[in-house]
């Protein structure tokens, strides 16, 4: 059984969680602007990634918080966990996002 690391409660058995599928699929700000095609894409089309994948989990049996995980959908290895609203870490093997230098 997989362990999912809740950012608050720590690693817990996977059954404690609700799986939220692909992360960063934002609900459009003004859905009425969207074409039927785009709306269908939002509702139904997901990337179905084989390998490292950004996905959402919710700690249903615990603190009920949603968060994001980068997890390999084949090996089940968990690479990173980050909270809603945080900048996604790079996928394994991917160049990190350019550091924000505005304050330096």
């Amino acid at each position, binding site marked *: *059984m*997989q*362990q999912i690391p809740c950012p608050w409660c720590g690693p817990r*058995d996977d059954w404690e969680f*609700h799986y*939220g599928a692909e992360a960063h699929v*934002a*609900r*459009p700000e*003004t*859905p*009425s602007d*969207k074409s*039927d095609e785009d*709306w*269908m894409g*939002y*509702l139904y089309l997901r990337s179905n990634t084989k390998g490292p994948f950004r996905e*959402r989990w*919710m700690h*249903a049996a615990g603190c*009920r*918080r*949603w968060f994001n995980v980068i997890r390999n959908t084949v*090996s*089940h290895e968990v690479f990173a966990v980050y909270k*809603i*609203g945080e900048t996604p870490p790079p996928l394994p093997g991917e160049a990190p996002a350019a550091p924000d230098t505005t304050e330096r």
Partner: protein
Amino acid sequence: MTGMNSPHQTNRITGTHVKGGGRVDRSRPVSFTFDGTSFSGFEGDTLASALLANDVHLIGRSFKYHRPRGLLGLGSEEPNALIQLARGNRTEPNTRATQIELFDGLVAQSQNRWPCLKFDVGAVNQLFHKLFPAGFYYKTFMWPASFWMAYEHVIRHAAGLGKAPEGPDPDRYERMHAHCDILVAGGGPSGLAAALAAARTGARVILADESTEFGGSLLSEDDVEIDGLPAADWVAQVVAELRSMPEVTLLTRSTVNGYYDHNYLTIAERVTDHIGAVVPNVPRQRIWKVRAKRVVLATGTIERPLVFRDNDRPGVMLSSAVRGYAVRYGVLAGQRPLIVTSNDDGYRTALAMHDRGARIACIVDLRTEPDGALVDAARSRGIEIHAGHSLVGSLGRGRVQGAEIARMTGDGTGLNGAVRRVDCDLIAMAGGFNPTVHLFSQSRGKLTWDPERFIFVPGTNHEPQVSVGGCNGDFTVAQAIKDGLQKGVEMAREAGFTGRKPAAPEVSEPKSTAERTLWLLPSTRPVGHKGKHFVDFQNDVTAADLKLATREGYRSIEHVKRYTTTGMATDQGKTSNVNALAIVSETLGVDVTQVGTTTFRPPYTPTTIGAYGGRDIGALFDPVRTTAMDGWHRENGATFEHVGQWMRAWYYPKKGETLRQAVDRECLAARTGVGLLDASTLGKIDVHGPDAAEFLNRIYSNAWLKLGIGRCRYGLMLKDDGMVMDDGVTTRIAEDRFHMTTTTGGAAGVLAWMEEHLQTEWPELKVHLTSVTEQWAVASIVGPKSRDVLAKLNDLDLSNDAFPFMSMREGTVAGIPARVYRISFTGDLAFEVNVPRRYGRALWEAVMAAGAEFDITPYGTEAMHVLRAERGFIIVGQDTDGSVTPSDLGMDWIVSKTKPDFIGKRGMARPDLQDPHRKQLVGLLTEDPNEVLPEGAHVVADLKPQPPMVMLGHVTSSYYSPNVGRSIALAVIKGGHGRHGQTLSVPLVGRSLKVTVCEPVFFDKDGSRKDG
């Protein structure tokens, strides 16, 4: 009783040969029966060792050919000696005699024979073996398909592995969750060493071994010394130290049987199996579910059988097993053993048997020039050695009485000399050892083929783990201990502990020289001609079957395996997989790695379903949730129905009443007088915060911003695809606080759904959600006289002006602080009284007392359903199924046209959802007013004598309505809104009914009754 006067055991080593006294307690004789015959053994015996002690070799019949079979192995690898244990509902089939500990009164039966073991009718299958080739099921029984039922009846009778009990299992099974730093699977030399090294760092260690005591192979050797001590004494020392450490959990009789993701492992512990009797309150078996930071696999090896003609005859055994019975149990499996070996290890068996009084018939060595210390030791004892010889075949009836041997050609593929007969009563096969890589493979580790030694060894691991000792391909005790100590401390360090590797002990053990691996021993005829060369003993798969499969074009071992069933029996091919793979690759002339390896799956050994079920049985199978008024319902004769995990009062029959009569009475009372419903199970959510109204405005399809304080509103919740998800009444308690209700079944899902949107889509909204479902007990007082009843308990002004429909008042009811909601799920005047749960029963009783003069009638969920259907109120999940829009339900009135957005708005705008031919909610009336349609029945326009027919939709709700005076039904029908007045058909089994489509409201069509 002492050993002195216990019944004689023919093969038990006694007298001057007590060197091999074994680890049984000879002062404690134990009696048992096998196939009805009484035998005697000793405490510490397994059923297998005790049967051998009594010279019983014939223990079962094989699966396909019903050939007589005896013991092959010593432990969990045993494929032949499957036993039906105990009687009645405690009986358990397919247990291995090698793992059954003897206790007084044990009852064992052989399997797979009829009418008895010695004369088995099914054995005629052997005479027709040409009818049972590889793939015989596929070839024989595939056509015609309708005959399968007949075939199956015969096959099930003839085959089958044991019998399942028919009644409930009287034993107790439990589960235990555990966490540790290091889990060590296997308590042989390497496992003990790893556990010791890890434990000394202070790590939490679990050491599990499937046998009755720790020590593994060391318990079966008499030629190994560790630090100058006999191996078994070293084992005892290590175990004693481990036992003294508080953070070490030692589990014997415990098989690590499953290895899952992220170092999650299961252990099947046999807690009281060896006691026999039921120990009150103590489980028979226990499944441990372990999360380990690191895992050490120390699962040892399994010896390979040699494949020669009739190598399945009782008395043909693995060499290491023969040695184990002698050294560990003090039993000579035969008085005149022949050893056939590819290596030096066979000589250890010859020496152990010889030194315990057996007369060695001879050693047949596949190697042409064996040498070394062990060979010298055999020669010095005068044991006859036939080097470069093949064991051509076994001889005997029922058990081994002799063997045929002959010199081989140089390449080992044929014979190069006359066949000679050797008399013997036992053939010990030493074919080399396979690392037991099952758990490693289960954990998705990649196996590597060692082409020098012809074995699979652990390659790349997938989980944080390590393999040590035999299962890692290290076959000497010295290396196993050294490696165990090293890896044990390394794993502990990885788990966050510090410590040094303990010094490795001095080990004295026999040195081995090179072996000669031959996968198929040459015989006088080609395989498949006269006699059988078994590869998989349990599934009766022969070398000829494998060769046939390759001739028929199979190339991958995964396909050969399924076609021939090799490796697919309950032993998962523990003794057969590598032999099968090698024979296939040799036949195809390709490398083993090209044929592939099979994947091992949990459980390692068969495990009873009872153990996995644990205590999740009977009343503890699933929680039964009840309300605060449940006791009253029970005391007053209610009948109950399950609604999810909830148990709700269904109806309250009076003496002699049928369901229909009771429900009719309840429905009439709720419309003409007053009824009382326990509505406590509805989901309730406190929605609080400055943005609460805005949040509801986005979640519900209708408008919420302007709802007055103290007012209630019905709302539909949609998903973003525009489909109805849930419904309920929500009330504004304060400017920034709402009390939301949901369906009983939707409560948890709705809360999660709203939390998801608050946390992920609209984190800027300041809203807190709190489930208050069980804070409140709810009694709905329903009907024209509900106001009169409530007035007696309450000093609120209950008039329509002061307390209008769809509003809420706080006050007391029967002296209990309460919230009273004037909402109705029947259409009639109704008051829903909410009180803190602890007062639920007091409230209910007070209302019943106050209502007595009005003949108040408690009603259950069945009447509730009828009453709401009379008014055409939907039940989400019954009249909807996730593919129904508000428009489909004729509920456009609840969809805001002015809100710029809410969940579901954009979805509903999709062209498909505007289609007038979608399935839409309608009412259906049968021709016969007493005919109640079955829910789920299909509705068609064009009725045909038999399917297929074009189906327009189906009945979602259907009842007899006493208030309407006829049956009523709701249905979803294609283009239903345009079909009012049409006559359609409902085909049923053997008949059909005509129905008229109507508006889905059957009673109080103008809704005028809500004010009483």
